[in-house]
């Protein structure tokens, strides 16, 4: 069996899920035997490649860039995995939805909370515009697997990846695999 083409992306999340991924420690060597990392925040690749076998998506869909990239990811990946609570539920990233839509959130962050020269940065092409409401990944594209947890414990990530490498579907049962938060 050839190596799996593996990708991971960092959307509207804090990178904590990727940190937990790095907590796989020595098992990362085993993983490196089984996969080629073709795209990741820890690899310097600019465009999302084609024919990817499995893509872990950390974070919720929160801005225009996420929204565009997630469709490319779906088109080019055999398995899309919602990786961590922000991807699965919106989680902390979606707490801004409680205040209101994008403009209200930006005002709150850049005007109400500022004493000196309160203004919302608007320069085009610098920061991607926020979408009105933060949503979980499966609200935008079909998702194949879900790994809950904020962040998911390394053991849980390993159990899922091990199954994927062996071509099986992971057993998402019980506290070890399913506890949110």
């Amino acid at each position, binding site marked *: 069996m050839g190596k799996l083409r593996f990708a991971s992306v960092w959307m509207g999340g804090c990178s904590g899920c990727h940190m937990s991924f790095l907590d796989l420690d020595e098992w990362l060597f085993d993983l490196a035997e089984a996969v080629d990392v073709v795209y990741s925040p820890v690899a310097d690749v600019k465009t999302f490649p084609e024919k990817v076998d499995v893509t872990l998506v950390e974070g919720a869909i929160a801005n225009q860039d996420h929204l565009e990239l997630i469709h490319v990811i779906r088109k080019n990946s055999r398995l899309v995995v919602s990786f961590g609570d922000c991807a699965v539920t919106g989680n902390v990233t979606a707490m801004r*939805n409680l205040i209101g839509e994008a403009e209200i959130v930006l005002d709150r962050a850049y005007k109400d909370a500022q004493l000196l020269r309160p203004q919302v940065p608007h320069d085009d092409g610098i920061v991607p515009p926020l979408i009105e409401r933060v949503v979980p990944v499966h609200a935008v594209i079909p998702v194949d697997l879900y790994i809950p947890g904020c962040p998911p414990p390394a053991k849980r990530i390993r159990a899922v990846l091990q199954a994927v490498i062996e071509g099986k579907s992971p057993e998402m049962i019980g506290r070890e695999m399913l506890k949110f*938060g």
Partner: protein
Amino acid sequence: MPRTLTINGQEISARSDQTILEAAQDANIRIPTLCHLDGLTDVGACRMCLVEVAGASKLLPACTTRVQEGMQVQTDTERLRAYRRQIIELLFAERNHICAVCVANGHCELQNAGIAVGMDHVRYDYLFPKLGVDLSHERFGMDHNRCILCTRCVRACDQLEGAHTIDVMGRGAHSLIVHDMNVPWGEATTCTSCGKCVMACPTGALFKQGSTVAEMVHDAEKLAFLKAARERKVWNV
């Protein structure tokens, strides 16, 4: 008169005044519940305990249905499992449950129910309602974002403390827990600050002030102890 019935094919006998849930508990058969709490009367609000009874056209809540002679009850069918997962997903979608930053993370009956029904994601759109947190009471707090409207707090306050400070206002998903005539909790003059509502709450909605993420452990079982101690003078369980 004892009644004989079967639960999941197992023959059991129960007292005629027992509910299906009580009879199942005595026979060590676990039926999932959320709004039920030992020591409080049952209201059949959450529908987690729905069971199939042979000959009945509807599913029946085990916590409010009395046993009958010859009843044949099924508690764990494919159909019931699917409904239970739906109920839990709807509860998560209806309010703002963000376990990662919740006082009850790791000690929450709703979170545990999610695990039990195998919920790896929620298929419904999250509603993200704008709801408040009442921190006006000097010892306790109420976070409406995490309330599942089980009314365990209402019943604990009324039936065990006798204060009846808490009530439910409004209808359906727009219902809200209120104190006295909808005043901030700290201004509710009937509240004795006993903390029984906090003990009864299954989620992070009621908590002790000053608890941070994952620190709030409720003592729901103590309420049943309290009731048994008072009414039957039983001091050890």
